[in-house]
């Protein structure tokens, strides 16, 4: 929900969480799942391939 400049709707993180769930149901916490996954899948793959190669290069045991 839009928080107007002249009123405070959310009082802290937990309050924001409770109101979000109350308003849109538990599933609303996973809005934007597909674009977040679209970002995480290639990012995690590239990062982990890279860090494994670096660990190997610097003599650390891989994951």
């Amino acid at each position: 929900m839009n928080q107007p400049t002249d009123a405070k709707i959310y009082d802290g993180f937990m309050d924001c969480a409770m109101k979000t769930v109350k308003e849109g149901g538990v599933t609303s916490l996973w809005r934007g799942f597909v674009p977040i996954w679209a970002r995480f899948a290639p990012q995690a793959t590239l990062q982990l391939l890279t860090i494994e190669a670096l660990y190997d290069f610097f003599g650390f045991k891989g994951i």
Partner: protein
Amino acid sequence: MQVSGAAIGPTVAEVMQAGGIKSFWKGIPFGYGRELSYTSVKLGAYAPVRDAIGAGEPDSPFYLKFVAGAITGGVGSIFGNPFDVMKTLAQTNRGSESLGALVTNMYQSQGVNGFYRGLQVNIMRACILNATKMGCYDMAKGYVADSAGWTRKDPRTVFASSFIAGLFMTITVAPSYVLISTAFKTFFILLFTHSHFCLFKKIAGI
């Protein structure tokens, strides 16, 4: 889109219309700074920390791997927070100030504290993210290597396991993105006009 509820297609179309294709790369130097600090720590320190807390052996309990991921993620996010703040600022900014001027403005109006806004939530998010990422990746590697008969070092093992880790980290982290973007609105609406924030939402895809 997490806030507006609009689908991804219309959201992308609106960003394109508002600022062209280049608006998808707004503030990218701050993004580089974020990866160089936050990502270097959360990934680079994982193996040393994991070994230091005794989670490096094949028979180590798995929860310790999650703990190692949470520690390096949380510490990394402290280094990355100033870049997160500046990246978000640059993405919402519709003026023509240089990135350097944005940093100067922030320092003059809010001091050093300005760069550490949202730190608490950021640390929480980073702990959840990195614990899931490294813990699930580590576990997935065992399952993939066993069931497919590949070694743990095989690029195919790495590829399949990181795909699995990516799915699980989306499940655990997505709620904190929704809440962060909802909570962030207080700050941004106070700092900018509503139209700035709408643009930010579109650019950030929330």
